[in-house]
């Protein structure tokens, strides 16, 4: 029997109306939680929304989420052969699933901040 990690993931676009989804992920030593989430997208459900860029380097700092209620980087949190609960950052505006709005306001797209024209 190969070991598995069970990722219990919060899904939804409305903080008040989400659902939990559990996926069993084959466990291998030296994998990150982000590896597990990417495995789910390829093998189970590509609609799962996660924010990440650098994958391994821990340089982009985009993959922040909550693991068992604690804020972590998904790419440095170790995948473990147990149930791991993943939810979006609770102190940030939810976008979808595990993705929240984490950019500083001045670096977000906000039509009203940038000179906007009428539709041509």
């Amino acid at each position: 029997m190969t070991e598995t990690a069970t990722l219990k993931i919060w899904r939804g676009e409305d903080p008040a109306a989400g659902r939990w989804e559990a996926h069993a992920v084959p466990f291998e030593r030296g994998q990150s939680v982000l590896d597990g989430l990417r495995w789910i997208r390829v093998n189970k459900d590509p609609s799962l929304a996660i924010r990440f860029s650098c994958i391994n380097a821990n340089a982009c700092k985009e993959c922040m989420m909550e693991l068992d209620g604690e804020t972590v980087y998904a790419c440095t949190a170790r995948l473990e052969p147990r149930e791991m609960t993943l939810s979006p950052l609770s102190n940030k505006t939810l976008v979808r699933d595990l993705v929240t709005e984490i950019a500083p306001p001045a670096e977000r797209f906000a039509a009203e901040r940038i000179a906007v024209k009428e539709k041509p």
Partner: protein
Amino acid sequence: MSTSPVHIETDVLVIGSGAAGMYAAIEAARAGCRVLLIDRSLIGRGGATVMAQMTVAVALGEEAPDHWSHHYKDTLTAGRGLCNEPLSQLLCEQGPECIREMEAWGVGWARKDGKITSAFAPGHDRPRCVYVDFLNTGPAVSKTLRTAVYKLKSVARAGDLCVVDLIKSEGEVRGAVAWHAGSGAPVVISAKATAVATGGLTRLYRRNSASANMGGDGYALCLRAGAPLIDMEFVQFFPIGHLAPRLIGMDPIMWDPFRYKLGGRLLNRDMQEFTDRYGVTEDGRYVITRDLGTYAILKEVEAGRGSPHGGAYLSFQHVPEAKLREAFGPVIDRLAANGIDLTKMPVEVAPIAHYHMGGVAADVRMRTEVSGLLVAGEAVGGANGANRLSGNAITEALVFGREAGRTAAAHAKATKAVPAPNGAADEAVALIAGDGPKEVPNSAAMLQRLQAVMADDVGPLRTEAGLKRALAVVADMTAALGDRPFGDGGRFDMQRLDWFDLRNMLTVARSVTEAALARTESRGAHQREDFPGMLPEWRLNQTVRLNGGRLEVSRPPAPRTEVAAQ
């Protein structure tokens, strides 16, 4: 979905916020333009720049004498006769100015005895590579530029904006259409000048050092807008990418800086140095160039002398613990957390896709063939020929970014009004806002399949049969992708993002593969098993164009004549 697009106007639009894009934005703003700097990821975090760990090649001559012409000569030699000399010269000649400006902005290049210090890297004739300790070059470069951008009131910045197509009307590029990931809405950006600084394409391969945003978007965007690409067959593999044991929180190219500082020994299954078999004697020093290192490791594996996971061993066991700590301090602890003690064990390494020498064809002012369209950074092809020297890529991003910003500003100033899209944005807007098909394949699995095919058949060692196999798969996948984006078009719709990524990646994969198939010789990063020698008649640069959906590879009628470096 029927979201009507938001419409934005600016003088200069910069797409991509790596070193090239940020420097371009700064320069265009300094020249008095309104600039909009956008990125599909967050500003300053999405690409290769923030991930770079070490060395920036530049002839500063602080510690010991150097001159840009020596750097230039080494660059041309490494490029195996294919460098676009004016671009290489620009990189080497202007490098020092940009590096000093970065220092003035507070990047903090490592110093010894008060002087900016340089490391030696393979292919350079002397120590020429500046860096920020420890493994912090990329983050420091990115942060410094981000802060410099922040101080400029005339630069507006916005992340989560993924450019889907450039707007081309009446023969000129007039901005871009972007998908706003956060809302799923289309955004039309009209600009007097547009600079594409979207970085490289190494996400095309299974094992890579890329971020999720490096699928070669800019190459596809420019191709579709009518700008040609050059040297697409030359994808650089970094020979000693981490292979085993699995590591968390470390970039796979981390062993490069280790080798710079500590040498290290590259060993085969029998714990023997082997690069001398392929013409380079290392003897514990780090001198092998990337193309040769990749070749040597892959050939050793092919001969049955590879390490257990199919690569080579890299050993620092002969280096005392104190020396390891002095050189890499906190990184040694991170390795320990992963169960790695370098004094006791070797690690396994193997080639990974790392950088793209090819790219959009541009002149020394970063102009493409299409009016209003500029390029910068790794998106530009030609400066590094068939093989890039360590450290040249960040210099290239800085220098070319600055140049693109200047040219964009000049172009914008010479343009009276922001040109209207005149309907040329409609198609891309419809793609972004359209309903997806009901039944779709798994987009993430498709991406993985493309990466596997590219790695297996369009990697560093190529054959006609393999390249043709890859083209067939790419054609199949292009058909499976169809012309309607997957997903629901809602917020952060990753299936839709995958679809846009695949649309670009399949086009770029085709460009690389067709160019590789056409080049019936071996040179630098392009090694044909069926055409092993480097041939003088192939001393020429191939061009790829998109013509009514058809990709065309062409080459000049005669090879280039020798241009001796000074």
